[in-house]
């Protein structure tokens, strides 16, 4: 029998202790609506979500919103913000507002794709490790531990060192850095579900292992993976910008917020606007993503009153 104490998986999956997470589909729709209602009451999460939506729209409509070509040079070098250039121009005469707008595309891509990579591979690893256990589990988890032995950005930097610079490499690098978190959560969830009585029952009725995974484990894995993903997107955007800032991620002349900061640094004294706006853009994006992630986690935690 499963122990009736709340553990981390219960918190993230939003189940009461001892309750099989999501096994009864009849109540699942009811629970999703309840979660959405709780989420709507979480004011900061709603604001964060709104900001993210706006950012996605900006990213998609970049070519319509940006007044200038983001990599188009001009003679108006280092102009302060004005009517013609809302955020001023940089040292090559490029319009900063347009570059910030196009940068939204790059950063959001980084956030979503890196986390998608991490979620896919991490979940797969966690599923396999948890389901098969034994030697497979040990080997896989040692690999995960090895990944975790190298702290966050250092891991991303090392991957970038090997595979080369560039935005796509950076996405892979950040994704790899986040795989351990997904793998561990999914594995612990699988282990918890494995102890549930209905798994015994299903197995005694002749269900194969793969069928068990698909029908019982995966639906339960969805919630914690979703929470972790939303918490991870903000971090991925941040690390991606950091990599570009260091010169390892996206490369010039791409309009990307991290690059804009590192390029704008030398003009700090004379042209504060070159540094101010990209930095603000990163902050707003990460803040919004973190708000949504936090809100989602709180909404799914049955112990928190909303």
């Amino acid at each position, binding site marked *: 029998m499963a122990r009736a104490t709340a553990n981390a998986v219960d918190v993230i999956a939003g189940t009461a202790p001892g309750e099989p997470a999501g096994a009864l589909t009849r109540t699942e729709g009811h629970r999703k609506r309840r979660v959405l209602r709780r989420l709507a009451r979480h004011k900061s999460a709603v604001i964060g979500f709104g900001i993210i939506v706006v950012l996605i729209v900006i990213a998609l409509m970049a070519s319509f919103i940006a007044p200038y070509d983001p990599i188009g040079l001009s003679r108006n070098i280092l102009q302060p913000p004005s009517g013609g250039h809302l955020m001023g121009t940089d040292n090559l005469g490029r319009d900063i507002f347009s570059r910030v707008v196009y940068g939204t595309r790059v950063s959001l891509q980084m956030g979503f794709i890196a986390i998608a990579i991490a979620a896919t591979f991490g979940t797969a690893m966690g599923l396999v490790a948890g389901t098969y256990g034994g030697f497979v589990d040990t080997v896989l988890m*040692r690999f995960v531990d090895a990944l975790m*032995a190298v*702290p966050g950005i250092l891991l991303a930097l090392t991957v970038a060192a*090997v595979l080369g610079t560039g935005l796509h490499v950076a996405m892979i690098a950040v994704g790899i850095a986040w795989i351990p978190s997904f793998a561990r959560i999914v594995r612990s969830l699988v282990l918890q579900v494995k102890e549930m009585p209905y798994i015994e029952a299903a197995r005694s009725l002749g269900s194969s292992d793969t069928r068990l995974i698909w029908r019982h484990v995966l639906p339960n894995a969805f919630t914690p993976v979703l929470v972790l993903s939303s918490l991870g997107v903000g971090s991925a955007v941040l690390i991606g910008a950091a990599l570009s*800032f*260091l010169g390892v991620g996206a490369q010039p002349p791409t309009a990307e917020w991290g690059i804009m900061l590192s390029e704008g640094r030398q003009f700090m004294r004379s042209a504060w606007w070159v*540094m101010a706006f990209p*930095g603000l853009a990163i902050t707003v994006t990460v803040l919004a993503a973190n708000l949504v992630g936090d809100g989602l986690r709180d909404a799914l935690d049955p112990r928190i009153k909303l």
Partner: protein
Amino acid sequence: MVTRYIAGRVLAIVPVLFIVSVVVSLMVHLTPGDPVKVMMGQSGASAEEIEQIRRDLGLDKPLPVQYVRFLQDLATGNLRSIRTHQPVVQQYLELFPNTLQLAVVSLLIATVIGMLLGVVAATHQNSWLDSFSMAVGFLGVSIPNFWLALVLIYVFAVSLNWLPATGAGGPKLLILPAAVLAMEQVALIARLIRANMVEVLQEDYIKTARSKGLQESSVQWGHALRNAMLPTITLMGLNFGYLLSGAIIIETVFARPGIGRLIVEAILNKDFPVVQGAVLLTATVYLLVNLLTDISYSLIDPRIRY
């Protein structure tokens, strides 16, 4: 019992370190293209010179031989930078104290501020002080640290000219970098202290202390905080990873000598031996710190034994 636990934890590190060392030593071969050519870059080395370097580095030998040789070189100080020909281990050990200094100072700052925020938030739960404290912390994890560093440099070094911006040396040069690094930790520490204090304050022994007539401040600081601090010790160990990651960026922005900067420059220069050595050493340090934290935690709280 305790020694068995410690022995178990130490043994668990060995396979992880093995995997990390194997990956690190052989990672040069994951580079698209010829590793030696990548390392030599644009230096215009002739085909003969490239082959000579390949033989010198032992890259033409079978992989297991390369692995053993890598470990030997690391241990004997023969692992050298491609650029400076300095032994990697020696360089690392020379620069490590700088990074450690930065990490310790910022951890102290973060703990003090974090504890204040956390206690205030917990004792004034759900008031505006609570929200404010948590919001400050939240902002701390959303602002990109490289941007905050640049902003602080602009405000304090460029505009106000109070503090020097770059380099290493006395306490004045430490303030800004440590402050930026501390910012990220503050949120984590404040949140943890708040959560733990809230739980602890509801415990029975707190009621007992109050009914004994103890002053409220003594109750809060003496009894509650002491018990709430236990998980914080673990957090400090985990924080070490964040500290290292943060140090990498901060050292680069503030041009401080340290292992962070060593690694970034090595990566940008494609100086693989330095990257390999530094990553392996850093991972080892990180694993050891985690081990120490686990052990000390199990010593402090006798309930945690395996």
